[in-house]
């Protein structure tokens, strides 16, 4: 997965905001990258462009050798469905569907039968085997987030995007989610990109990329709490 000279701005004229300025970045297969930066620095925009949810104004996004910015809307949607997974900050589950139905929703959209064994394995892994027939409203926040992760994994995507997946969780639960994410990289060989504000969460990643004002300003491999915290506090100064 790679971005090449991606730019994106919102609005027109005086109110125009440049959210991303000519960003290029590569994400090797089987790596876990954390994206950090102050609020409004363009992290979410970066993810949305990388995931094809938003069309960049300029630049290209490559996944498995294809430039997804050149794809037509409906083809892109199907491509996204099969090759990318998403975990959002707020637990975006369909409240009318049970846990099982939420997890297998991508299959339903594909018009295919869910691979039962694989679904069971994932659900087992995220620890929701007993909760399969519950509605989201009957689950805790952490459990709901684990459902999102299961859903993101179920299509065996090449890349998984997670926008502040632990933002709304306590430390304990958050740690569990992060371990789960780490495992998807180590165990299944997925590429994972995660936005976070939490230096401790960043330590689960292989490297941290720092974004300021829509541009990449720094990169750090094998991050520790101290180094990332120090870096972030330098920004404030």
């Amino acid at each position, binding site marked *: 997965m790679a971005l090449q000279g991606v730019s994106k701005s919102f609005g027109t004229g005086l109110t125009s905001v440049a959210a991303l300025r000519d960003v290029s970045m590569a994400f090797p297969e089987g790596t876990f990258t954390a994206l950090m930066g102050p609020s409004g620095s363009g992290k*979410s925009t970066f993810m*949305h462009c990388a995931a094809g*949810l*938003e069309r960049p104004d300029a630049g290209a996004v490559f996944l498995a050798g294809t430039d997804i910015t050149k794809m037509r*809307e*409906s083809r892109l*949607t*199907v491509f*996204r*469905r*099969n090759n990318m997974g*998403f975990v*959002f*900050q*707020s*637990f*975006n*589950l*369909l*409240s*009318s*569907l049970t846990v099982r*139905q939420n997890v297998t*929703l*991508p299959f*339903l*959209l594909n018009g295919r039968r869910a691979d039962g064994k694989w679904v069971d394995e994932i659900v087992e892994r995220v620890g929701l085997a007993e909760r399969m027939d519950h509605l*989201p*409203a009957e689950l805790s*926040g952490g459990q*709901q987030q684990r459902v999102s992760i299961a*859903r993101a994994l179920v299509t065996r995507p090449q890349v998984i995007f997670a*926008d502040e997946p632990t933002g709304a969780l306590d430390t304990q639960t958050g740690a569990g989610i992060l371990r789960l994410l780490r495992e998807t990289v180590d165990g299944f060989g997925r590429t994972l990109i995660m936005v976070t504000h939490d230096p401790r969460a960043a330590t689960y990643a292989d490297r941290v990329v720092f974004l300021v004002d829509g541009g990449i300003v720094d990169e750090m491999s094998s991050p520790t709490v101290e180094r990332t915290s120090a870096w972030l506090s330098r920004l404030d100064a």
Partner: protein
Amino acid sequence: MLRLGLRSVRTRKARFAGSLLAVALAVTVITTGGVLLQSAVTGDGGSRRFHAVTLVVTGNPHISVAPGGRPIDSGADPVGDRLPPPRLPLSVAHRVAQVPGVREVVTDVSIYSHVVKAGGPSSRLNADGATRGHGWSSSRLTPYRLREGHPPVKPDEIVLDGGVAARTGLGTGDFADVVTAVDGSRRYRVAGVAHPALPGPLHATVFFTDQTVARLSGDSTGVDAVAVFAEPHVDIAQLASRVRDAAGDGTLVLTDTSQAEPSADSGAYVATTAFLGIMSAVAGFVAIFVIAGTFSLLVVQRRREIALLRAIGATGGQVRRMIAAEGLVVSAIALVAGVPAGLALSRPLAGLLVSLGVAPAGFHPVYGAIPLIVTAAAGVGLTQLAAFTAGNRAARVRPTEALRESAAPLKRLSRLRLLAGAAFGALSAFIVVNSIATGGNKGSGDAFVVSFTLMITVTLLGPLITAQLARLVAPLIVILGRGQGFLAAANAKANPWRIASASIPITLAVTFTCIMIFMPQTVQMLTLQESLLRIHADHVLVSADGQGLPSAVTRDVARLPGVSAVAATTPIPVRLGMGAAGGPVLTRTLMALAVEPGEVPALLDLDVSVGHLSTLTDDGIAASSSLARESRWHVGDSLPVALPDGTRKELHLVATYERSLGLSDVLVSADLAARYAPQALASAIYVKDDGRSTADSLSALTKDHPTLVTLSRGAYLSQLQRSNDSQTTAVYLFIMLIGLYTAISVMNTLAAATAARTREFAALRLAGSTRRQVLTMVGGEALITVVIGVLLGTLIAATTLVSSSLALARTPAFAAPPLIYLTIVALAVVLGLAATLLPARMAVRPSAISVIGARE
């Protein structure tokens, strides 16, 4: 996708309950309207008077009036279809009698008659329409059988049918006064009483001797119908074709004898059909809006969910199919619930129509397949159409919206919608201009269509218009309370879509209620105004039975001392070739008024615009300016006309006049009517005094003329004002029913829109608002919504009414009693506020944190 739709419907019962209710109600309304409309169209069983006969030959009412007999057909001819066909020459009967297979022919003559007890008081209004007079030989056609007495033999003997005998209290041997067109009132002796040998509705009937009725028809060389009794075992189709050959041109041979003359109820059925047609059109229109509104709301409510599906990888097409599947589920359930309800409702409604006097006594629901097919098609079709437009909007929801905390409201109208809105706006403007230019009844009818096109325009451009209006109205609301008023105004400005979809049903309700109530009142007001200007007579004479006065009355009035001028107006049906002279001819039957041109100026000021009425001789014709304009006639043109007896003639347009409302669009000379329509009766006789009062001597005339009613000018005008009462009551009642339906829909839409904001209210309360403050804010928004709805509704209704008035009478004035208008507005306000505040109260009842905590 169907599965996803189905599941969504199942788990969101509460949310779907609203749209289900809306569609089910629409289905109910369409079913009821369809059943009643079909019942009215097919309810008239025709005349049963020729029941015993094999074939009937009548004159052909569809005579070509074009010079050279160019074929033309008018299609539907609402006046002509209810009139008796033209008369036949007696020679037709002789020719038909010679046809092999014909055992016997009987000629039938039908005349106006009004029977009262001799010397008795003037009879009250004839309940079952006119009594018809026939020759005794016609009694075999039904047949009638004598119960007492003997057949009429002497010229002054009559036989009554049982109904007439019972109503008048006459029996065999009694003396009766019978009013006819040719004789006026004349005394007869009742020779017997006869009853039809078959049950069912028939005209009230009086039988004369054959010679007497021939004389009373005013033309003994003509007959109204030739009834044919066939030899036994003759093939009827072959006989009919032989009879057709023998009868010749200008005749009609009917094997279905029920079509030989209009039935006693035919007029009533036409009126019922028209009434139900208008009511069904309005109800159907409301149904379309309600269903469309429901689905667009469904999408607005579920933006986040749809965006999430898009983010996960649902294509736009999949979202569209999901909404369509939901529409299918909703319409299927709605059909199952709504159709039986609609069928059940049609019986009491039919009863209501009968008891209100809008429908004839025999009116009852007929359950055919057509209304059901129409309902099913409409129910599924409308929901699919609504789901399609809503689905298109849903498919445009962007996936990233799911990832933002507060879903951004849709800001833009699609280009297609803007274009369509502009097109309907332009169409509305065109209709207004065109209907005013056309003028007359046609222009006024066209203007009614503007209410529909404007309504569509407003719906299409709704958010644009409401955003502008909200800016205007909002400052008023800020007074409500600084904080809440401000919030309400800000919300209204920021959410034009929500305001639009909530205010449109209110606009709809206000528009149609106003138009349905004020339109007839306006026509009545304008008619009265024109009559006031037109009528210079001191007295107006009319008939008690509504059928008209014989010419003998006019003659007798003219002889009275103190009378300086008398003019009778006698309606006769004429078939006119419409359209410019020399162009393609479309035939339409109009009721022309026959007048004595010399007498008119003293009694009726018609405001002649071109030409002179004094030149209205028996080859002349005058037309209202609006009819002349519509048909592109000019004074001096010669117009092809077919007269009631079938005669074709060219009449010259001698004048056009302005004051036609409440009179007629066409005038011909009394001479012409006397020659070609000897049976015609005067609808009114206008009388002017020479200074002495003639009121007493006029009243004394009622002794000789039992159907005569004499009215002073003032009394006549105030009677005009009351004339529409029974129709008006029915209109009110049906408006209330449609209003109730609209009200439920408004409630439904507003309640759903409010309930969808539970989270927003909770957030406000977490930020420190009290429940009361939230409710004040919601109330403020509701007020803005209602004010906008009422404003738009009033504007549309006013535009329609002004155009209609301008078309009809060249004045923008329309009737809108302030009390009724204010009641409508008050109801709309109460409805709008209640429908918003009640669900809002429910929404703020649970603790805020529990709402925020319950994630979507």
